[in-house]
């Protein structure tokens, strides 16, 4: 046995001695999603060498950017212990509004106007859930339907198109590139960095965790619960407006239902990132990983030649596995103790 290999086996034994099984479990629980992501990427790269080329990676991230931007905002809402099922129809709304206003008042005014309108919707939800303390699942379910109706009323049921598609600089947000990187990716990364910092390093971020972890305790500690939840919904609405901007700018025309069903994909990404629906846990970084996993699954399955729809079934299995293993590691048992 050579020295090197003996050293290696010594090292391994040493590690095994210091790390009991429980600690391994804890590490797996904390970093499980990253490990799964790595395994997944290696498997697909072996299956198809094209998978990890820069071109493919960029195109995957670019197409995930819209879901990703929305997931950032929903992360705040979920950590604060609430849900947001209205982001899909809110995204349709902002897409339709900005496309309509583009021709009426020019892009420079249309964008802030659209942001203001979307933030109003967010503020309304935030008021209902934060200040009136209504159940967020039902409120946002109602808003999903109501905003869809609002969008249809606004557009009269017609598709919205920009008249002069060639001559507008508006397309930069969805189709432009800077430094060789598509602008949607830059927006996604910048927003993730900004919101990640806000969540991890500011007093406000800590309040979000406190409110989601134990709302009553947070109230007794003098944390303004209502205002914190309200702000989370504003952040979510701002992210949705940004996603709508990217979507509108990418296609320069849109149906009324462009965001339909996205709320569930967004939620799936957030859950996959390990945020608990009970609130109080999750990070922006993990949500980004969740978004990327969903994006790469979709792309990887297509590259190995599977049907487009197989991704839904795979996503199903992965979501349940991810959450299951997460809570299994926390309780120290694989199977639930429910009798």
């Amino acid at each position, binding site marked *: 046995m050579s020295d090197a290999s003996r050293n290696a086996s010594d090292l391994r034994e040493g590690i095994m001695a210091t790390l009991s099984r429980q600690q391994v479990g804890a590490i797996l629980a904390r970093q499980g999603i990253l490990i799964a992501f790595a395994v997944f990427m290696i498997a697909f790269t072996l299956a198809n060498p094209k998978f990890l080329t820069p071109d493919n990676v960029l195109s995957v991230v670019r197409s995930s950017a819209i879901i990703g931007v929305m997931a950032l905002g929903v992360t705040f809402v979920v950590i604060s212990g609430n849900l947001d099922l209205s982001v899909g129809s809110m995204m349709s709304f902002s897409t339709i509004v900005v496309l309509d206003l583009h021709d009426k008042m020019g892009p420079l005014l249309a964008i802030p106007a659209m942001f203001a309108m979307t933030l109003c919707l967010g503020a309304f939800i935030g008021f*209902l859930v934060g200040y*009136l*303390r*209504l*159940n967020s*699942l*039902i*409120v946002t*379910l*109602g*808003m*999903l*339907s*109501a*905003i*869809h*109706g*609002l*969008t*249809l*009323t606004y557009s009269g*049921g017609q598709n919205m198109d920009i008249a002069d598609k060639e001559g507008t600089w508006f397309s930069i947000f969805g189709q432009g590139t800077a430094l060789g990187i598509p602008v949607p990716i830059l927006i996604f990364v910048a927003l993730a960095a900004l919101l990640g910092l806000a969540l991890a390093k500011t007093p406000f971020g800590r309040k979000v965790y406190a409110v989601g972890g134990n709302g*009553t305790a947070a*109230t007794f500690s003098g944390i303004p619960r209502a205002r914190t939840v309200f702000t989370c919904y504003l952040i979510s609405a701002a992210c949705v407006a940004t996603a709508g901007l990217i979507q509108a700018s990418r296609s320069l025309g849109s149906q009324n239902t462009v965001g339909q*069903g996205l709320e*569930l*994909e967004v*939620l*799936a990404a957030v*859950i996959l990132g390990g945020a608990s*629906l009970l609130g109080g846990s999750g990070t922006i970084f993990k949500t980004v990983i969740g978004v990327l996993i969903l994006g790469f699954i979709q792309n990887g399955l297509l590259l190995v030649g599977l*049907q*487009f*729809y*197989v*991704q*839904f*079934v795979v*996503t*199903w*299995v992965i*979501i*349940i596995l991810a*959450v*299951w293993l997460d*809570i*299994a590691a926390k*309780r120290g048992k694989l*199977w*639930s*103790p*429910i*009798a």
Partner: protein
Amino acid sequence: MQPGALSKALKSGAIWGFIVLELAFFSIAGEFLSLSDKAFMDWENMLLLLKQSAPIGIIAMGMTLVMVNGNIDLSVGATFAIAAIVLLDSMTWPIFAGLGDWVIPVAWLLALAVGTLLGALNGLIVWKTGVDAFIVTLGSMLGFRGIVFMFNGENPTSHLNWTLVDFAEAQFLGLHTATWFLLGVTLALWFVMARTVHGRNAYAIGDNREAAVNAGIRVGPHMMINFAIIGFLAALSAVVFYSESGSVNPNDGQLYELWVITAVVLGGTKITGGAGNVIGTFGGVIAIQLLRKGLGHIGADTSTVNLVIGLILIAVLILDRQLNIKGKEELKV
């Protein structure tokens, strides 16, 4: 009168009051706004309304049970679509070719079995893994829908069997077949929830799971049975609806879960479990269908229907909260 009895009576009666209000409003508004000469409260119209309530209504009864139990099922729309495809496609399978019209009950049984199995699968996962039902069924909603699309891509699956259509369009004692199914399911679920041990236990588990466990109730099997029941009812709803229409699009049933949950919540079932009944849900289903039909009657389009239903759902929540606060004033933090 006991304290809280008034608000309780107000709450349980609210949905029926709302229905009466809707009927009055649409009848009067219809006189001025409607394009047709027919009155809104026409007998034929009301019969049709009951028939059109059936697909959502049948599922809503199962959702009441699942929500009273403290869970939720987001996958019912996708289960509905899968069962519809099984129903229509199995009638064309060569192994059943010799059966003639006897293929109908076979196809029905197959569709119902598939729905029950999918529901039971959801329940088993919730039970054995301990993952929240919201997440499990959110996942299976994607997964089941994926299976639907894998079957036939974006193309519709069609098969018309005229015997079946005749059965579905038949009227017995004035009511359509679908209405009979809706009434039958409502009655059956009422019996299960109010008169059986399983129903009592479902309430107990939804109200306080810990206490139920301590009382020796086996939580898991009850949850699984309830998920199997809602899967069965989603399939039954598909059987009733597609027997008549004979063609299913892969997108059919999408957003059904939202309509169903709206109806159940309007009917007074608590989202956190432990309270609610199918009679209230029946009212919720009728109220929603009245709203859709009534708004159509006075010339509003689907966009208004969506807007109004969303806002009503929120209004009900606010109202419910106000009524609850009155009883809990001294407990307020």
